[in-house]
Each structure stands twice: as C-alpha cells, then as structure tokens.
C-alpha cells in the first residue's frame, strides 16, 4: 500500500515477462504454451495488428465504399493540413481538453481530499462518487442534455428561481464545450478520484506530523508534502484524462451533433463523419493516424516529465 508514498519517483511500472523457473514444463513441450495463447493471438492478429497496419496503408490510398482504391502517397495528409474542417476540429478538441482536464482533475482531487479528511461514512460516499462511472456516457449525455435544455431543463428551472436566464447552454458557441466537459467530468471523475485517494492514503503520516510540529500551515503541508508525494499518481491521472479528452466523441454525438455550427465538432467526430457519412475511408484513416500520434506524444511527454523526476 505504501509503494507510491515511500518512493515518490516510482515511474510508470510496466509488467514484464516473468522468468520461468527450470524443471517444470520447459522446452520439452513448447507447443503447449503456443496452444494456450493461440485463441487470443489469433484475435489480436486479426483484429488489432491487421487493422493497425491497415490504417497506415489505407491512409495512403483513396479507398472508397466500392472497394476501389489507388495509391496516392501522402495526398490525404496534405489535404488534411489544408482542410479547414480539420483545423476547426483540432481547435475544438484542444479547447475541450483545456477545459475538461483541469476540471476533472480538480474535481477528482477535491473529492479525494474530502474523502481522505472525513472518516464519517467514507465507504458510502466513495460509492456515491463512483456511481456515475459505472453508467454509460450516452446515458450521462441524455440526462444532461435535458438538464441543459433552454426551455424545460432542470438547470434553467433552478436558475429561473433566482431570475437568471434562460441560458441556452448547448446552443451557444461560448458555453457548449464547457457544458459537455462538465457532463464528461461528472461521468468519469470517480475513477481518477479512487486513484488519487489511494495515492493520498499512501503519504506517510509521519511526514505530515513532522511538518505540523514545525508549524507548517495546512496549505504548506499540502503544497510541499502531499503534492510532491502524490506526484506520480497525479501525472498518471493527468495523462489518462488528457488522452480520453482527445478521443471525445460520444457525448458530442448525443448532446449536440457537433453543433451549433461545428462548435463542438471534435477530431473523432470528423473521423466518424469522413468514414461513415462521406465513406472517404482513406481520409478518415489519415485522421486516425494523426490521433495515434497525438496520443503517443502525450504519453512520451509524460514519461519524460516523470522520468526527470527520478534524478
């Protein structure tokens, strides 16, 4: 339980193949191991590796619904760079990420801190905060779409009691991304909260007590002991939330359909439309490759940052 706390520099640990100890079942019958991996391996080859290779290949062709295609090298990519819709969707995705990530990390950290401080009914409250996580983003989107509704919505009814509004949360360029970000944060914060709570509980009590005796204020203890101690977990949460923000689609599809006028038209939305509305499979695949590189860069930057912490 204390791994993270004792070793603040613990990098993202990845599972490694376990060395097999001699005697029992070694190369005598190598085929046994192969037989046991075979079903999963076949699934991976067909439905993970083949599509991964296929994505690269498709992005270099003009593959169409008819199945006809020609090799067009990097034309899809040059087209992407000039496509205003691509610029727009990239901007929307970035803006959404800049709203969603701080929001969800603050809510997760806030609730984790509250749970850590208040012992009363901790299990119950932990369960309540985790509840939205087990539901689907579609359900969250359907409920919140109604909450935000300009005419019959719950939020405007409440605001109406204090003579504010009505505000068209999903119908205005200025509020649509923030409104969707709140919905996604509500749906998903329970997961990050649990991870942060585990990190908080692993901070050695003696550090905090020593600081307290030295007269450090609560803020100082939080800033100079808790935060550095939970840094690896905090980074982990930041990265998974950033990656999930770049893949946003479901909530926008259900709540706004990308509108108003593409104000919530994300990168994955463009990918989906290019593929399944315009059947421009080559172009859609190129967007997918871009998405892959964005996610890869985020992961690498994170490893760099955490790695520097090790020194």
């Amino acid at each position, binding site marked *: 339980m204390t*791994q993270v706390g004792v070793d603040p520099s613990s990098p993202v*640990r990845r*599972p490694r193949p*376990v060395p*097999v100890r001699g005697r*029992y079942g070694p190369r005598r019958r*190598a*085929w*046994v*191991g*192969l037989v*046991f991996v075979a079903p999963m391996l076949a*699934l*991976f080859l*067909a*439905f*993970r590796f083949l*599509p991964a290779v*296929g*994505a690269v290949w*498709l992005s270099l062709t003009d593959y169409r619904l008819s199945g006809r295609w020609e090799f067009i090298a990097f034309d899809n990519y040059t087209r992407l760079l000039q496509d205003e819709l691509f610029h727009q969707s990239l901007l929307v995705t970035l803006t959404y990420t800049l709203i969603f990530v701080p929001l969800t990390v603050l809510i997760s950290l806030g609730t984790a*801190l509250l749970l850590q*401080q208040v*012992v*009363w009914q901790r299990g119950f409250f*932990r*369960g*309540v905060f*985790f*509840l939205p996580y*087990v539901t*689907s983003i*579609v*359900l969250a989107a*359907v409920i919140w*779409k*109604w*909450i935000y509704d300009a005419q*019959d919505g719950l939020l405007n009814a409440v605001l109406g009691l204090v003579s504010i509004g009505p505000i068209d949360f999903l119908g205005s360029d200025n509020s649509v991304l923030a409104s969707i970000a709140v919905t996604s944060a*509500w749906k998903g914060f329970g*997961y990050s909260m649990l991870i*942060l*709570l*585990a990190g908080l509980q692993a901070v050695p*009590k003696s550090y905090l007590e020593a600081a*307290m005796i030295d*007269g450090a204020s*609560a*803020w100082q*203890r939080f800033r100079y002991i808790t935060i550095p101690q939970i840094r690896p977990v905090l980074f*982990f949460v930041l990265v998974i939330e950033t990656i999930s923000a770049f893949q946003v*689609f479901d909530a926008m*599809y259900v709540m706004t359909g990308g509108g108003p006028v593409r104000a919530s038209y994300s990168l*994955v939305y463009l990918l*989906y439309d290019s*593929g*399944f509305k315009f059947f421009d499979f080559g172009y859609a695949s190129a967007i*997918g490759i871009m*998405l*892959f590189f964005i996610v890869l860069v985020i992961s690498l930057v994170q490893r760099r940052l955490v790695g520097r912490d090790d020194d």
Partner: protein
Amino acid sequence: MVNLLDRPSTRRTPSSSSSLKPSRPVARLTLPTLLALTAIVTVLPFVAMVLVAFAPPSGQTFPDAFYPTRWTFENFTRVLSSSDIPRWTVNSLLYSLVSVVFVLLFAAMAGYAFAKKRFPGRELMFWAFLATLMVPFQATLIPSYILISRLDWVDSYWGLIVPTLANSQAVFLLRQFISQLPDELFEAAEIDGASEWKIFTLIVMPLIRPALATLGIFVFLWHWNDFLWPLVIGQSANMQTLTVGLATLQTQSVPINQIMAGATITVIPSLLVFGLLQRYLTDSITMSGLKS
C-alpha cells in the same frame, strides 16, 4: 488510521487551508457538510432522471415531477411498446455476457501461457500485446470496419462481439495473477499425470477466481456501456444495443418523460452490478492506481 480531525490546532490561513486540515469546531462540520453537498450534486442527475420518468406524461417536467401523488408507470409502458427496447436489451446482454465468457477464457489461457510456459516468440508476443495498448481504438476504427464488412459480418453478432474479444488489459491482469501461483502446484499435478487442459481447468481457473470476478465485472461494464463500435456495426434497428438505441431515441420526437423512462431501464443492470459488487470495482482500481 489516525483521525486528523482531533489534532491540536495550528496557525493557518482561514479560507484556503480550512479545506485541508480542519481543527476548529466550525471546521469540523465544514468538511462533512461539503462532502454531503458534493454527494447530493453527484446523484442529483440520477434522481431527476427517475422523477421525470415517473412524472405524468403530459405537460411540464418541472415541477410536475416533484409531486409523488401523480407518479405513473405510463412513460415506461409507452416507451416499451413504441420502441425496440426489449430487443436492444437482448442485444446488449448478448454483447456483454458472451464477451465476458470468452474474454475471461481466452485471456486466462494466454495469461497462463505467458506466466508459466516457455515457447518460441513469447517475449515478442508479449511486447506486441503491450504495444496495442498505445493505439487508440478510434485510430483503427475504419480498417476494423472494412475488415468486418469484408467478412460480411456487418450488422451481425459476429461483427459486434468477436473483434472486441482481443482485450490486452485482461491478458496482463491475469498473467500477473497467475505468475504469483507457486510452480510446485503444477509440478505436483504433472507428476500425478494430469493433462495440460486438466491443470488449466482444475487448478489455474479455480485459483484465479477472485481476479476473474473483478475482471468479469469490468468487461461486462465496458461492453454494456460501449457506444462507438455498436453504433458502427449495428446498422439496422434490430442489431442496435441499448446505448445506441437510447441515442437514436432522443433524436426522434419522443417526449422527454419517455426518454428518461428508457434511460432508467438502461441503467438498471449497471446499478445492479454496482450495488452488488462495488467493493470489487473500487478495490481493484485502487490497486491499479498504486501500481501505476
């Protein structure tokens, strides 16, 4: 755990710090109150959903929904008869349950091989499995769809279920768990003349039951809540899952009370899983957080 609420008071700035380490009597109540309020805000959307689902079908949803005397099942009966919810429920259940069974079986087999067997290409395969975690699902959405259409599996259970069985997280989790089992166990069984399949089904599977239970819950929830893949593959109304059905329902001119009734129906299995097995879920996330 030491209760920090009982610590002696120290000097601190009033506003920002009070949310961290309370010590004065007022502060002792502040945090639990804040916690309770946050909890209320968290469940409020669910409560609103249920209230609207039971409200009288005609008229305003607010504040009508808050008069319990007028509650009715009418929205449920209407939405059940006018939409394909029963069929979507069957599809969602098939998608989730069949996937759970085969993901657990195949992942346990692969996990067992990676943990306890030696065979050519083991390391390479393992790293290749690991690498697929880096590829976002959406990045390969188009080629996956083309592959499914080439197999003529679009709009079929095969197309819906089979590709989602390639689950690397499941393999890693079970490999981790199985590698902790003592080798002596397998040696003893082998000396007793047990066949490889017997060892797997009678020794490995029962011993990893706790991991299978936790993983099973997660796989169920992933599939039950999944949206993009069922949206792309289930093209006719007959092949849609509940999430896709719900999304299409709210684009049609269905009254909000009925949409909320439908939404309430979709959330029941998730809530059942949550109510019965919450501890498994939260504990395993806590563990994964520590490992990360």
